[in-house]
């Protein structure tokens, strides 16, 4: 028994080394940085140890703006994208003709470069001297006033960011859910049919529980992904996100490290640890809730 135990550790060694070097060590290092006050990256010196970095970050209006943006992004995009993906994949699953074609179309955004798509969105939404953008043309067609989505009011910019995020994360969710739906044994549907179960009840009482593990996976990864959003905002609003009021937490961390006002790894570390704590909390809450609703 003893010997076999050692052997197991031996097998785990490569993975543990890898994870140790690239996951655990950096995490600890970031935590240490976040407690070092007045750290200077050039001379690698610091004045003292304490919680000043956290206090600074938590009182920084740019950080608070980033937290607000991130939370709005998470709250809107995760439920909406998952819900819409569920609708689309249910639809895909119930059609026969052209199913593969539609599946390919829905999957296209996944293989398209984020920045390229961002450019397309700029063209759709941006208002310049020469054109109002396609979306504004449509709004005007219905008698509305054109809005500047890229440099305009906060809510308009937030709308574009959410819209864009949902659009980008959709294909993976549609693909995953379509395959999850297809893997449900059709006999359950036959059984439900013989019992006279309505379509809606079949969906809520049979389909949803059957695909709940996959749904849960998408929600968890969706939350984490949305909390880590950054490149989407850059693609739409450029690199000076603080000026655009569109920064995210990860964007703030990046700015603190390398941005124009950067060079503060301690502040960046503190912000990263705060983000880590937020994601951890949300994931734990998700896991607790899922115990009731997810059927493996």
């Amino acid at each position, binding site marked *: 028994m003893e010997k076999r135990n050692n052997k197991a550790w031996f097998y785990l060694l490569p993975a543990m080394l890898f994870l140790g070097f690239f996951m655990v060590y950096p995490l600890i290092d970031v935590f240490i940085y976040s407690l070092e006050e007045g750290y200077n990256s050039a001379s690698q010196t610091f004045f003292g140890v304490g919680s000043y970095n956290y206090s600074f970050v938590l009182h920084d209006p740019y950080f608070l703006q980033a937290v607000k943006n991130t939370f709005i992004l998470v709250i809107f995009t995760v439920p909406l994208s998952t819900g819409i993906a569920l609708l689309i994949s249910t639809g895909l699953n119930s059609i026969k003709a052209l199913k593969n074609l539609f599946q390919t179309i829905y999957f296209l955004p996944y293989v398209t470069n984020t920045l390229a798509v961002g450019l397309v969105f700029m063209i759709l939404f941006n208002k310049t001297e020469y054109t109002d953008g396609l979306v504004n043309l449509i709004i005007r067609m219905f008698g509305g006033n054109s809005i500047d989505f890229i440099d305009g009011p906060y809510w308009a910019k937030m709308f574009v960011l959410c819209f864009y995020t949902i659009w980008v994360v959709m294909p993976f969710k549609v693909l995953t859910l379509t395959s999850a739906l297809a893997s449900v*044994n059709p*006999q*359950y549907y*036959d*059984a439900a*049919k*013989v*019992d*006279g*179960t*309505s379509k809606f*009840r079949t969906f809520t*009482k*049979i389909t949803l*529980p*059957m695909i*709940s593990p996959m749904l849960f996976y998408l929600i968890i990864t969706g939350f984490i992904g949305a909390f880590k959003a950054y490149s989407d905002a850059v693609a739409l609003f450029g690199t000076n996100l603080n000026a655009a009021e569109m920064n995210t937490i990860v964007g703030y961390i990046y700015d603190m490290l390398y941005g124009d006002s950067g060079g503060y790894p301690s502040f960046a570390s503190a912000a990263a640890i705060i983000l880590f704590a937020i994601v951890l909390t949300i994931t734990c809450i998700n896991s607790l809730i899922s115990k009731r609703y997810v*059927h493996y």
Partner: protein
Amino acid sequence: MKVVLQNLTKVFPSRNKKTQDDVIAVNDFTFEIPDGQLIGLLGPSGCGKSTALNLICGLQTPTSGKIYFDDVDVTDLPPENRGVGLVFQNYALYPHLTVMQNIIFPLQNLKGNQKLSKTEMQDKANEVAALVQIGELMERKPNELSGGQQQRVAIARALVKMPSVLLLDEPLSNLDARLRLQTREELRRIQRETGITTIFVTHDQEEAMSISDMIVVMRSGIVEQIGKPQDVYDSPENRFVATFLGTPPINQFTGRISQGSLFVGDDEIFKTNDILDQPVYVGIRPEGFIIDENGPLHCKLHNIEVMGRDFSVITSHEASINPTIRSIVSTDSAASLQSDVINFSIRPEKLFVFAQDTEKRIIV
């Protein structure tokens, strides 16, 4: 409720449009299932018996023909309006629901004035649970049950709405041998107690024979014979039915009728009526052999298997279609098994003769 099938046909179109070889899963079924009986649809795999069941259930629509429940034409009715209960081969219990929730699931679908209160549902569920004897398992999930218990839950779920017809698709095939024996008795008992017309599909002839009031023997979409199990066994209408029924299977020989006698190889084993001379197949049930020193059928002895209450005598004969002949004889007649050659006389009621071209039975 009486179930009547009238010229029922189901054709599955060919996937390959060029060849156009459509599959006729059910070919012109016409028969009547009397009220309150247990019917076995019997046939080898792929013979269309499950399709027939799905047609009666309403999960598939027939290409042509009619289905009547009593005198009501239900051909175009969806399954939920037919009042049928269906037990699937792998039970199709909802894995995320408890046994109780599984059983009341059909009741929760009821609408309008049929709607039941929660306690009424639970009472009904407990009633059928008692009938199939799973009362103590109500709070478990399906994956915490054994195969036999899952089977009972599936039957309970099918019975809870008190269907007028209960359909079972290969109900015993997922159970081990011992459980299968026990469960088929159980099926019979449940059917008797409820009096519901029950149709079940099986490829196991023993299963069908043992509990059915009537069996329907099928082959490639065609009904070969319908009747009481013993009648079908005792007088098969063709070679297929004769070979399909019975364990051990019937022994088959090539033979001929010549001048009022039936020959198996060179052995003249039977005096026939006035029948045209022709080549035939001869089937003799294992229990149709009697060890008899002066018997007309001369076989070469290979082996004797002692089964306890009787012997299985393995012999061979040059006209036998299978390499060996298996006969079952009582223990007291085994004394004469000394030499290499063994002679049998044949019980005439266990001997069947089939024309070689049509494979239909010739009464001799």
